[in-house]
């Protein structure tokens, strides 16, 4: 029996109108990987922020290595031996790796000494990294290494990881897990937050499940199925997506020789992309973030103009048409970034619905808005997709990520698209909502729509797509049927190990 490292008793934190954490109690032991499970808004991030000293609890107490622990700020938490890798990397793009690491340390040595220590630690743990490189130029996997090394240099006793694998290739995930196992063998405890239940089953020793701010139970992930865990999180049974047998129609969207120059410093050029989607087919496009996903979506939606012949919808060249014309023809898109790209944050749901649906749902007459019909359409989205919101007049910003995502996808699905392109449809969405969104995409395909799903979640792509291709540095791999693919093949299609080899020796 190992010793108890961190004990949390009755931790409570209320925000105006929400009880984010309600008397949460659990304990982590040394050398243990402890998973924290819960839907979006279940209170996971509030809880870890309290442990890391970013948020002060209203009541309750914590003990760390047997002593009372109340960190007033992250500095105190770091001094006590608690380190955290954030979900949205807390990195500074314009600075070098060494400077980024120095910012996360209490008393960093001079930059030159620090650089050699970074090399040392990165070799010990098999995470190769050049301290002089600018962080803005690194891949997602490399950026995560910066965060991890920043934590490791402080020799933490407890490492908190918030959704660490959402941006990694399968090979990168393997390397991360090896590093984590090595840390636990040295006695470091890891508090691990993830939506990927299969990962939790492979990695974690214990799991604590939160629902609406309350600790509703715990389990041993290795002995619990992913489905049981998901049901514990949601508090109810839900249906997993079902694929109806269906017939493919003729080719709906045909992309040939699509090339687009990178739009800015940190963008990716698309190089000579070919694929075709048939009616009733779901095409999954995988790849690590930043390999051209956003650019491909922009080229398909009409935000970027391309050669007329490069994109054909039902045989008609549409490369030169803008987004509104493509929408009118039935090519609809739902981009990844919910706030700011897919929806205008400060406008109401009705207004946001009008923004993309005005033409196809005929929500205007002689240039004036038909408010009544627009509101009806919005209500239909809300009911059909179970969007939890006070009403259609609510600002998009006020919705939680998962609910807004359901709205954004629902808004396009209900416009009966001929071709629907979605990017990261279930990013940061909890299991039940994700299942609902995937089911909606499959239903759409069953009714003859061609669906292109761009995603970094391979499980999702394997679940819903008929054929799979991967983007790597703006190029698209060969597109192959999903049934015959193994995880290794997918990893190779995604661009192999991305320099993520474990350092030898």
């Amino acid at each position, binding site marked *: 029996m190992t010793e108890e490292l961190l004990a949390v008793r009755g931790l409570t934190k209320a925000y105006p109108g929400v009880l984010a954490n309600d008397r949460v109690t659990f304990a982590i032991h040394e050398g243990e990987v402890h998973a924290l499970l819960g839907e979006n808004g279940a209170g996971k991030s509030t809880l870890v922020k309290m442990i890391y000293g*970013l948020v*002060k609890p209203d009541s309750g107490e914590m003990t760390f290595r047997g002593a009372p622990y109340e960190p007033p700020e992250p500095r105190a938490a770091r001094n006590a031996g608690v380190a955290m890798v954030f979900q949205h990397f*807390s990195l500074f793009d*314009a600075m070098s790796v060494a400077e980024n690491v*120095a*910012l*996360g340390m209490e008393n960093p040595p001079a930059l030159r000494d620090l650089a050699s220590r970074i090399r040392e630690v990165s070799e010990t743990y098999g995470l190769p990294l050049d301290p002089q490189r600018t962080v803005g130029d690194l891949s997602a996997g490399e950026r995560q290494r910066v965060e991890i090394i920043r934590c490791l240099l402080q020799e933490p006793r407890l490492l908190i990881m918030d959704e660490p694998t959402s941006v990694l290739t399968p090979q990168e995930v393997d390397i991360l897990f090896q590093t984590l196992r090595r840390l636990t063998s040295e006695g470091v405890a890891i508090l691990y937050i993830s939506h990927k239940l299969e990962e939790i089953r492979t990695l974690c020793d214990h799991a604590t499940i939160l629902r609406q701010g309350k600790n509703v139970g715990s389990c041993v992930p290795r002995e619990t199925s992913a489905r049981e865990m998901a049901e514990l999180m949601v508090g109810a049974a839900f249906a997993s997506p079902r694929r109806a047998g269906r017939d493919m129609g003729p080719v709906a969207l045909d992309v040939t020789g699509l090339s687009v120059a990178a739009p800015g410093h940190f963008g990716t050029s698309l190089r000579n992309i070919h694929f075709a989607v048939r009616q009733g087919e779901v095409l999954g496009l995988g790849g690590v973030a930043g390999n051209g996903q956003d650019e491909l979506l922009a080229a398909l939606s009409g935000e970027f103009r391309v050669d007329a012949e490069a994109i054909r919808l039902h045989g008609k060249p549409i490369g030169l048409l803008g987004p509104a014309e493509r929408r009118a023809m039935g090519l609809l898109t739902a981009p990844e970034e919910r706030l700011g790209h897919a929806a205008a944050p400060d406008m109401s749901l009705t207004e946001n619905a009008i923004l993309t649906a005005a033409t196809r749902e005929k929500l205007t007459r002689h240039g004036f808005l038909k408010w009544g019909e627009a509101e009806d359409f919005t209500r239909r989205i809300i009911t059909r997709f179970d969007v939890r919101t006070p009403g259609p007049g609510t600002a998009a910003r006020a919705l939680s990520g998962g609910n807004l995502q359901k709205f954004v996808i629902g808004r396009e699905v209900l416009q009966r698209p001929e071709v629907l392109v979605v990017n990261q449809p279930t990013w940061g969405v909890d299991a039940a909502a994700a299942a609902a969104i995937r089911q909606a995409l499959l239903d759409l395909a069953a009714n003859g729509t061609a669906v292109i799903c761009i995603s970094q979640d391979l499980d999702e792509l394997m679940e819903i797509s008929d054929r799979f291709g991967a983007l790597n540095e703006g190029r698209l791999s060969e597109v192959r049927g999903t049934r015959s693919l193994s995880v290794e093949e997918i990893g190779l299609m995604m661009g192999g190990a991305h320099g993520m080899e474990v350092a030898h020796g």
Partner: protein
Amino acid sequence: MMLFGSIDPALLLASLMVASTPILLAALGELVVERAGVLNLGVEGMMITGAICGFAMAVNSGSPALGFVAAAAGGAGLALLFALLTQFALANQVASGLALTLFGLGLSALLGQGYVGLKPPATIRLNIPLLSDIPFLGRVLFSHDLMVYLGLVLVALVWAVLKYSRAGLILRAVGENHEAAHALGYKVVRIRVLAILFGGACAGLGGAYISLIRVPQWTEGMTAGAGWIALALVVFASWKAGRVLLGAWLFGGVTVLQLNLQAAGLAIPVEYLSMSPYLITILVLVIMARDKSRAPGSLGRVFYATQ
């Protein structure tokens, strides 16, 4: 050319140093503010407030040094207002900065009513026995008032602190990504308030340099857009201290040159000559700014801390 024959190069270079100091000081202050992620468009207002505060204090006390202290305090005082609005009331930075300029212009006109036509006490110039007597260099480099040298020291200081010190690293981090800096436990608001105060003090010094040394007298609106040039300088200098110095010299140089050309009776309308420093400075800096450097990531964005 005949025309240039009548211009003494040593005098020209010496007055270049003087003409560039006000915008150099103001631009350095603004550079620090923007590196911390705050866009303060109130530079002109803080400069003119510094100009009158410094002028009034120098006239009343008879000491130019006390005048400069008062100018820094006046500029910082106005900047504090901006800090309260943008960092605590979370007001829009662009609107607050513009309001600050208008407020500063009005406030200085009010404060300066009794000072029109007065002469401030003279600021002592450096006179180092050997150095100042070197034929050409002595006049160009070693016979200025202390503020000119303070400006140059400040360039080196700002550059070194931003590049090599931990405080500079943290300041840049706050400007680059305030959410990440907050997550790591740095006090974003406190660091920004300090940067804003520093920027205000520098702008105040720059303003007082105009009213106490360069002109030296008090007239309403006498900064005449120097604050705006300082702002443009920071952007086109790609947020680098060395380039700010270069830009300030360029602007000061062309200003002095066109004045000399006017005096020499060049057959170009005066208006064209007067606009030339602005045009040439911006043109040259735009060409220089075409490399990869970019603005601090969080520049001008409002920071909400989650508690």
